């Protein structure tokens, strides 16, 4: 557990340190995003999302590292700048949960824009907010 926290912290530090060179003005979702999600506003966990655009599809991973999770079926609806993606994760009990994340891009004009919305799976939902680094 301590090791995974260290890996997470180092990953986050590397991402933050590399952020100025990674700032992008191209596709609005492309980039490294750092933020929080959790079961409630009082119980939030850090999350890193890396998103990319290949000209046809949005791809990416959640929490890059040894336990990273690939996102699936990612879309951007420019009418309202709605971002939606799915991910399959295994919880502590070994059960597979199908996450759906949906949010709205804020501060579209700026490189440090945000995506704010909700996540949900079979057993719950909560707030989700990430900011482009």
């Amino acid at each position, binding site marked *: 557990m301590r090791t995974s926290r260290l890996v997470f912290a180092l990953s986050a530090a590397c991402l933050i340190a590399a952020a100025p060179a990674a700032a*992008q*003005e*191209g596709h*609005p979702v492309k980039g490294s995003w750092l933020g929080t999600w959790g079961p409630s506003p009082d119980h939030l966990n850090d999350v890193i999302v890396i998103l990319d655009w290949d*000209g046809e599809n949005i791809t990416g991973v959640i929490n890059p590292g040894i336990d990273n999770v690939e996102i699936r079926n990612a879309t951007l609806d*420019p*009418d309202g*700048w709605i971002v939606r993606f799915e991910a399959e994760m295994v919880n502590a009990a070994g059960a597979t949960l199908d996450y759906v994340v949906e949010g709205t891009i804020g501060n579209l*004009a700026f490189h440090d824009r945000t995506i704010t919305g909700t996540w949900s799976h079979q057993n719950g939902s909560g707030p989700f907010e990430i900011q482009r680094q």
Partner: protein
Amino acid sequence: MSYGVHGVSVLLLAGLLVAAAPGEAHHSILGKFDDTQPTTLEGVVTLVDWRSPHVHIFMNVRNGPRFDNWAVEIESPDMLRKSGWARDSVRPGDAIVVEGIAARNGSRQVWGDSIVMSATGRAVLGVDESAPPAPLASRPTPRWPDGQPRLGPLPGGVDGYWAYPTAVALVEDGVDVAMNAGGLLDDIDDAARVAPLQPWALALYRARQSRHLRDDPTYLNCKPTSGPRQFHQPQGVQLIEDRVRERVFVLVGSGNRNFHIFFLDGREPVGQVGGDDDNPLYYGRSVGQWEDDTLVVETTSFNEDFWFTNGGLPHTDRLRLTQRFSRPDFDTLRYEVTVDDPGAYTRPWTSSWTLRWVAGEELPKHFCQENRP
């Protein structure tokens, strides 16, 4: 020089206006000022701040029993000089009438469209942006001894550069849309006609346009005017041919006087291993060759941190440009660019325009100074 208490307060106001402007730095004019809010000011000049990128005139305007100090923003020193004006064309103490448009944020700032001396009615500090008259007769294309057209100044110290582009922003050839000198569309519903944009890119282009281009990184952060945008700048562009080293230097007459290199020595468009080989660049990597009388330049490896045209058309790091330069006569540079960016557009597309030769002059000194309006 002594400014006195009043002079100091004016300088402080000027300083505050400049320092408080990270979001209002060198800017798209309509991003900061509202052309639906015409304003007339009559008063006395207190300070002329003659600096790039925009000159500011501060003036006291009577407001009932007191005077308010207003900032009048006008064109750049180099454009004013080209129109025959100097830093002392208007001086502190002069009574002037300013016609302009008001700042969108309600502050005491206007963009000055005209300035007239109250006493004489003489117009001052206006900018004439029109191209000089065309030569009466077409002059032949200057050529090197081997017959290849010259794109830059002639040998012997006679300077010159290319300016007065016939287009102000990228628009696909064959499409006719109205826009201002900064690429702001007269009718935003023309956005979809400008280029074959993917849906997200069209939405982003419309969003940038609807904010009057105020988010342009060139104006906000002095980011380079790269790609085709180099050839849209009112301050012009100079091409210096180094035949010994087989390269063409592109000197940009705006921003921070950056330059770019077209390599004609047959190299691959890659960076230096261990250096910038995996680093996308503002100007990309350009290699070219002559095809008859046309210089054809391919450029890739762009980053996404800038706008590659006035007006805010988006691009991605998949952007590949094919630029063609030809000089059909002494005074005309024909520029054609094919934009191939499968990340932002549905197909490759082409835009072209011409520039005029400005003989006997060095490239204007126009600087973008960070956080200065």
